[in-house]
């Protein structure tokens, strides 16, 4: 295993931020850490990097305990922090070169890796420009370039696509795919369910400091295979619709967004007709209706009782 977390515990006063977490990540995996704010994802990442003291348990990376070998272990880790962590007063190339030097690169090799990292993130033509002139997406890509230039064995990406345009987001996602194809091991955290679903080979769902589910996306969906997600487009919407639908036996949750009603419920033969009846009795009209297969979103909702962005 490339990364092993054994009985990991972190407390902040009386708050148990990480509660006895056990995880193993194999070489070449894209491992997703999924959870709402405060679930403990960033705390775990900080402990992996040796930035936050571990209160209990241990972390072993590349066969070495992080505690006592931080500098040695961190040489082979690339971190893409959640917040932009670049220098606005250094050019794109200078930013990447600065972090390269911290990881021991110098001379021609340094210049070569700077060029490669900027090319990989689509910033070659911006190498001499200052990030203060960059769009949010370009800054995010530079944030990634600074993590890759020393060719780390383990790349940790903490919410790398937060707040960026679709073009940059697609670029980043395809970059992660490329890194995976090249054999890199990646730990990927995100609020965006579809990203995790698309990229990750295995996923841990976290809530309140604990891992509440772990497996491939297929394994996780199997956990809620007895449920279905029904999406109804409505006309003449009023809020009594939600109350009426929630009264139906087997309905676990019901969310109204604009004119779209999303219902999560246990599978049973007469469910759809019950929902249509409830909508009609509430004075609304059904325009279209579809039953969807379980997604990670519905898995998360089932396991935690809340949406990922709560």
């Amino acid at each position, binding site marked *: 295993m490339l990364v092993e977390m054994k009985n990991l515990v972190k407390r902040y006063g009386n708050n148990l931020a990480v509660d006895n977490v056990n995880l193993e990540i194999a070489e070449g995996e894209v491992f997703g850490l999924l959870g709402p704010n405060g679930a403990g994802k960033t705390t775990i990442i900080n402990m992996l*990097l*040796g*930035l*936050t*003291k571990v209160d209990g348990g241990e972390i072993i990376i590349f066969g070495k305990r992080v505690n006592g070998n931080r*500098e*040695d272990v*961190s*040489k082979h*880790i690339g*971190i893409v*922090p*959640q*917040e*932009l*962590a*670049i*220098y606005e*007063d*250094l050019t794109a190339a*200078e930013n990447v070169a*600065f*972090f390269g*030097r*911290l*990881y*021991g690169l*110098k001379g021609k090799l340094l210049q070569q890796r700077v060029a490669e990292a900027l090319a990989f993130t689509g910033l070659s033509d911006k190498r001499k420009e200052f990030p203060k002139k960059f769009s949010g997406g370009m800054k995010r890509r530079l944030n990634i370039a*600074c993590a890759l230039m020393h060719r780390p064995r383990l790349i940790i990406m903490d919410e790398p696509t937060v707040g960026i345009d679709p073009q940059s987001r697609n670029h980043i996602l395809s970059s992660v795919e490329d890194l995976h194809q090249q054999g890199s091991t990646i730990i990927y955290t995100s609020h965006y369910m579809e990203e995790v679903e698309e990229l990750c080979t295995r996923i841990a769902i976290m809530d309140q400091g604990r891992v509440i589910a772990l497996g491939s996306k297929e394994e996780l969906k199997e956990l809620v295979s007895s449920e279905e997600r029904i999406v109804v487009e409505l006309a003449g919407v009023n809020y009594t619709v939600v109350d009426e639908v929630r009264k139906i036996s087997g309905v676990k949750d019901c969310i109204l967004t604009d004119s779209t009603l999303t219902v999560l419920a246990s599978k049973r033969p007469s469910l759809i007709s019950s929902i249509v009846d409830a909508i009609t009795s509430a004075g609304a009209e059904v325009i279209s209706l579809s039953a969807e297969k379980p997604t990670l979103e519905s898995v998360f909702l089932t396991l935690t009782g809340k949406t990922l962005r709560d």
Partner: protein
Amino acid sequence: MSRIITIARRTIVQNLRDTGNALGQMLIFPILLIFILGNALAPMYDVGNVDPTVVGYLNEDSGPMGRLADEFMNMPEVKDLLDVRPVDSVTQGNNLLQDMDITALIHIPGDYSTKVIAGQEAEIVITVLPGRTFRGALVETVMESFICGSNATQAMLAMGNPQPEYRPAQGSIEDQPFSVSGLMPDAMDYYAVTMLVMIVMYGTMYGAYGMAANNLYPVGRRVKASPVRPGEQYIGTTIGNVATIFVSSLVIIAFSHFAYGVNWGDNLFLILLITFLHVILAVGLGSMAIAVMRDEKRASVLINLLVIAWTFLAGGYFKITLPSAFSWIQYFSPSFLVQTALFNTIYGGPFSQTLLMLAAMIGIILLSGIIGIAAERRSGQ
């Protein structure tokens, strides 16, 4: 070591590119202030000629000493220093003093000669207007000169010379103009030192920003996630900031010397050493402020207030003289320590005091360094 150099170099590049701060605050601001204050306040620092001090003179002694006193007061050397106005009584003299028409009253009592010749204690009464300490001291000095002469005359009388002549030795009272150039600062010299000290003290802001960037900003935490060892980031940032401020100080010293003719004394090495230690002290204090407060805005406000207070206490804006009972307060101002060391070095003050100031500065540097590195380690808890 290479990581320390990398971090130091990045800090310098950042500081230089932050042109509004680096060039504006650290160079142009003090150079302009030295020029403005040095010229505007020049008269306060000029050492001009002293006009003769107006004194009332009441001589009630008709004996030989009284006659000698009259002769003495009419000597050209004394007239250069004292504008003697004879009065008829102590009451008249006191009235003139009250009306501030005279600065001092010299009263020779009627029994002065008798007592001197008899070998008894005799006194000449000098009354000086309150607050005129300098001119009062001048009158006292002149009269002491007379007393020395009168003692010699008394000795001659005792030896049997009935008509001794009062003839002061050449140079006993002489208005000797002396050059103060290089021995006392004029306004430009004074403000070159105080503005240098003030602006280096604002280098605390660099220390504070560096420490905040290392510990409170995401990019600082990213550096910590790299293979840097504990303390390397702090040392590298400090070296970069110290280098930036020290080079700025050199520019101020060189510019003020060559453009304004400011006197930096003969011991340039010691001046640079004091300045270098001062720069480290300033950066260290800024780092310590962030380490303790963990809030960049609050620390910046505190630092700004402290620099103003320290500069004021050190007499950076204008010279201040605290009552001796309160003069110890000045030693709480790092600016005072540095200014004292610099002025002592330039104008030949006691070297032992300079060493004491340097020792105090090194103490503050060590303390702030220990607290800074401890805070770096604490940030990972």
